[in-house]
């Protein structure tokens, strides 16, 4: 998905950015940064790491724009590069998956426009979701994020993760079951439910 841009608009932006247009580069970044950041943050659970990864990913994307095949989705390409950067970084660094980090991840991801009460509910909700996500395997987590957070179809997730669609579905179903169970057991489940309702209404 192009996050509000039509395909042709995005193509023009890409062409301009490849020609060295600074504004076009900025527009491309603004268009995709939210999705890429959310994806990486959900995967790694560490905001500071996610920021480093996303920044490096955008630098690589914009440096290699001339290699982009316009027959494919730009967002998919950006996600692929971001994912590779994250995997490389995680390989080099020792992963930290303690609950403090996970809570920090959820706490930083608040939207400012909502009122304090709803914000508190959302914080609790995201803490719980992030903690639950970090309990899943990396494959289940990734499939869950791409499917439920970014609305990617199964076939696209299958291409992105280079695994058969059946395996993607299997990860998705197991991840859902496990996530549901973990969230049901969460002490702040009531708040979580309210926040989820609020979220579904706003969407």
């Amino acid at each position: 998905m192009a996050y509000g841009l039509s395909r042709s608009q995005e193509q023009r932006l890409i062409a301009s950015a490849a020609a060295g247009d600074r504004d076009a580069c900025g527009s491309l970044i603004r268009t995709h940064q939210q999705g890429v950041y959310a994806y990486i943050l959900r995967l790694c659970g560490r905001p500071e790491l996610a920021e480093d990864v996303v920044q490096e990913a955008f630098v690589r994307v914009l440096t290699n724009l001339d290699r982009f095949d316009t027959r494919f989705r730009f967002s998919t390409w950006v996600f692929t590069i971001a994912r590779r950067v994250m995997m490389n970084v995680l390989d080099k660094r020792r992963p930290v998956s303690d609950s403090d980090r996970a809570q920090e991840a959820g706490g930083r991801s608040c939207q400012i426009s909502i009122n304090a009460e709803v914000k508190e509910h959302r914080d609790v909700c995201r803490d719980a979701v992030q903690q639950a996500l970090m309990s899943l395997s990396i494959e289940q987590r990734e499939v869950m994020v791409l499917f439920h957070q970014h609305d990617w179809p199964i076939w696209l997730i299958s291409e992105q993760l280079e695994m058969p669609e059946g395996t993607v579905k299997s990860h998705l179903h197991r991840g859902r079951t496990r996530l549901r169970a973990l969230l049901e057991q969460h002490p702040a489940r009531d708040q979580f439910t309210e926040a989820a309702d609020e979220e579904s209404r706003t969407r």
Partner: protein
Amino acid sequence: MTNGGAPSPDGRPVQGTSRIDRLVNAVLDAESRGDPKLAKQLRAAGAAMPGFARSLQAAREAASAMAVLPQAPDFGPSVLLELEHRGALRTRARKRRISAGRVALATGALGAFACAMVLQRVAPPALPQGAPMSELVTTAEADFATSVESLGDAMLAMRETLFEPVGTLVTSSATARPSLGLELGNTDAYEVRSAGGHAKAPTRLALISVPGVPDRSLPPITSAPGHRLADAGASLLVPSPMVLSSRATVPATLPKAPGEVWLLWDGSGWSTPSSAEGRR
């Protein structure tokens, strides 16, 4: 059939919950595919199952919570700054543009190369230190008297140092005699047999490089026909071509055949190798 909602740690549903879980997943898949009719049918099928509605609600809540995108910082300024730093924002034309700096760099490199070539031509390197054998030969030809003297010394040394008969050093190949046995006081085997003080038979003279002496490609010497080489009382006629041999081409035995003389360049002068060295 129960709605336990308690999968095993690896996410696999335990027995008894799998049917509800499968149905819940099927409903969510159908809804996400945009197939409300199928979703409705599946929900109707699950309505009879105790706990299905609650499981479906919990799964939807989890999915809704997943859909929330965390607020991202603005990466624009930092990314653009990094791109500028790496020079990635320049257009292709600008990247290809020939700058004065590049021209200066190329000119400097070319000038340095040309200067080095001129210096090499004007001042060739001193001979003994690492000079190629071809230049040694050239110098020897230029100063032929020195070469003859060296070869003569070498022949004399060969006579003194040989400790077993190696056949006739200078003979006619047609009249080559077999090696004589070594006898105390009998130096007959070492004597050069020549008629009228000159070797009549064709003789091949081979120069062998030694360890420590640069072992480069060694072209054959072609300009020595008929030269007289002094040999302390005897003279040798050296026909063309003289054979200049590297270590790699030293024959297994030395001398290889009657009429062959092998000389060894030790970096400062020519000498005859011992037969043991020659058989290396």
